[in-house]
């Protein structure tokens, strides 16, 4: 009653069917509306039995309306249906490995086969301590570090120079671009074998070879001295040099592609302004090109470092699975190589510890890179 007073218009409209209730019985006019009104009146009358009222409302729904409600319910979970295959595979082969790697790394010399047999393993940091004391591990770590620290700056600088040069020519530019991209679409191991062939001295006995090989021939043609690059008895420095040349050769295309893309996005007005001011080419390069490209440079450096720490197949390509020249197996091995050796020897605990160490190194280096580039990257 009080409602009626507060908002007469609204209540009038709402109450309309209720008001029509009394005459509806008598006149039997507006049968549908009358029926609904009666039903609701009944529901109100039988207030304690609420289910009753609901039961009475259900038959009112048309099949179409039902369909909509079902569709709505289905729609709410449909997305998960679409994601199901991806999520199952990710759960088994991505999420579980993350958890399990951490678990295995804290179980001393964990071996899954023995674990199934019911063996138990000591819990603790033994794997990490053992790995760090392992001489082979230290070799792998220093190799990986050296390769990364040398190849990333060299390939970035070279790629930058090539990209700038490509950007300032017109004739045969597309052909050049294609040529510089070719190393990317190759198999790292297959072309590694070609590099091996080029640097190799030929003949069973390296001290008295049949031929000194094509690279040494070229070096001698320019007045240099032939070097035993990759064969038995070669020095580690020579091995390292070959690896660096190959990795840089392999890393160039991606960096050139990204940097050239960045260069084409630089506003030409900056260069025109610099020209008007009479700035030298060198100055334009350092004061305009490099700062404008700094986000792309940061990107290729970061991905370069990540890729460098995961270096493996280039070494397999050149030296084969022995990861070193004949007589010095494992000398050029890397972190990833160490992890695979541990998996193959059935020591998943050690492999996990090494993998976590690698992850922490990559993560830390990436963070440092990001921090530095945040300070250095312009705009």
């Amino acid at each position, binding site marked *: 009653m009080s409602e009626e007073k507060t908002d007469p218009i609204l209540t009038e409209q709402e109450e309309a069917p209720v008001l029509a209730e009394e005459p509806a019985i008598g006149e039997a006019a507006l049968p549908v509306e009358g029926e609904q009104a009666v039903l609701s009146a009944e529901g109100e009358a039988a207030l304690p039995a609420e289910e009753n009222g609901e039961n009475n409302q259900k038959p009112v729904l048309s099949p179409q309306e039902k369909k909509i409600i079902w569709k709505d319910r289905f729609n709410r979970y449909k997305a998960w249906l*679409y994601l199901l295959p991806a999520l199952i595979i990710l759960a088994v*082969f991505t999420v579980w490995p993350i958890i399990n790697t951490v678990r295995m790394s804290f179980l001393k010399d964990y071996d*899954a086969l023995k674990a199934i047999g019911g063996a138990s393993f000591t819990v603790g940091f033994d794997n990490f301590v053992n790995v760090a004391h392992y001489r082979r591990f230290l070799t792998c770590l220093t190799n990986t570090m050296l390769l990364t620290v040398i190849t990333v700056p060299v390939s970035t600088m070279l790629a930058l120079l090539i990209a700038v040069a490509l950007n300032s020519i017109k004739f045969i530019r597309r052909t050049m671009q294609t040529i510089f991209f070719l190393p990317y679409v190759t198999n790292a191991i297959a072309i590694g074998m070609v590099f091996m062939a*080029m640097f190799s001295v*030929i003949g069973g006995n390296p001290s008295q070879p049949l031929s000194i090989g094509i690279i040494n021939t070229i070096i001698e043609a320019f007045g240099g001295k032939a070097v035993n690059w990759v064969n038995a008895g070669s020095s580690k420095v020579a091995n390292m040099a070959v690896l660096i040349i190959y990795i840089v050769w392999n890393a160039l295309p991606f960096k050139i592609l990204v940097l050239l893309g960045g260069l084409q996005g630089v506003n030409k007005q900056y260069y025109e302004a610099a020209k008007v001011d009479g700035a030298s080419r060198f100055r334009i390069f350092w004061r305009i090109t490099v700062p404008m490209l700094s986000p792309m440079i940061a990107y290729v450096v970061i991905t370069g470092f990540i890729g460098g720490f*995961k270096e493996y197949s280039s070494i397999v390509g050149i030296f084969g699975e022995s990861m070193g020249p004949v007589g010095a197996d494992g000398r050029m091995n890397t972190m990833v190589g160490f992890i695979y050796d541990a*998996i193959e020897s059935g020591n998943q605990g050690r492999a996990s510890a090494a993998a976590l160490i690698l992850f922490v190194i990559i993560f830390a280096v*990436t963070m440092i890179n990001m921090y530095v580039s945040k300070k250095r990257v312009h705009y």
Partner: protein
Amino acid sequence: MTDFHENNENEMTAVQQETLQEEAVQAAPVRQESENKAELDSAENLMKEKDIKTVSRKQTAMKVLVQIGLYVFLGIMALIVLFPFYWMLISSVKTLDEYNAVVPTLWPQQFKWENYAAAFTGDLDLGTLLLNTILVGVVSTLLSLIITVLSAYAFARLEFRGKNALFAALLATMMIPGELFTITNYVTVAEFGWLSNWAGIFTTLVVPFLVSVFYIYLLRQNFMQIPNELYLAAKVDGTSDLKYLWRVMVPLAAPTLVSITILKMMGAWNSYIWPRLVAKGTIDLVTVGLRGAAFTDLATGLTDFPAQMAAVLLVTLPLLLVFLFFRKYIMRGVSRSGIKG
């Protein structure tokens, strides 16, 4: 975006038609000017030349020198990049004696095509390797495409609780090096009993790498660019989601799907670590077989480099051909990923 822009323009024309027309009249010559800028520049140069002839002559000389320098630099670098391919090509048709000659020849004196035949008949058995690789590549690419399309669609078009959090979590897994997964996955597939027979090993080669978060990300971005109006229109017409996805979204995102297909196939072609670990000796893929094959004669200690280079060339050539035909798609995918395969 375009609709919004058009609306704006309509409103503007209604109000400011006259002023706009006036502006257009004034702007037309300016636009022409900017188009013919090069000509004008040269015209300006001509005028300047009259004033300061010597300086501009010096400048043009400098320009030519710099251009020559650029071409020399690029030429040398291109030679270095191309030389390994060249060496592979000519070595693959040399006889062993010619290859081992004291002074290496830069063009084969005698062509020995049998080197290629040897790759298929000898220890390497390239035919089987190719068949295995194509089988693994095709199956994993097809399944991967289906999963990627469905997931990308869910992330781009459907609403559900925790969508953004889930997507962020997926992206975060991209930071973790793959080696970390390999250790456990090796144990997992062994425990599933997949390593005991051919079908199981085939499954092992395909399944763990079906979901690539990066591809989902790439395709999601592409799907999100497709205007939502299309989806609503399709809904009004009573089209089901799956039909809409297949008939509208997939064709519109075809370039990205081609990129994904090519990169995935290249991945199968180049994969080495996992196939060697789980399938060596049963389902050898090209790279594993190539590196594992012995080309060295144990008696003399001489490596048959020509035969080896022929095999390497046969493995490399398909990749180069695919690249030359699908250059655009490969470069598009690569520049955004920084990953191989």
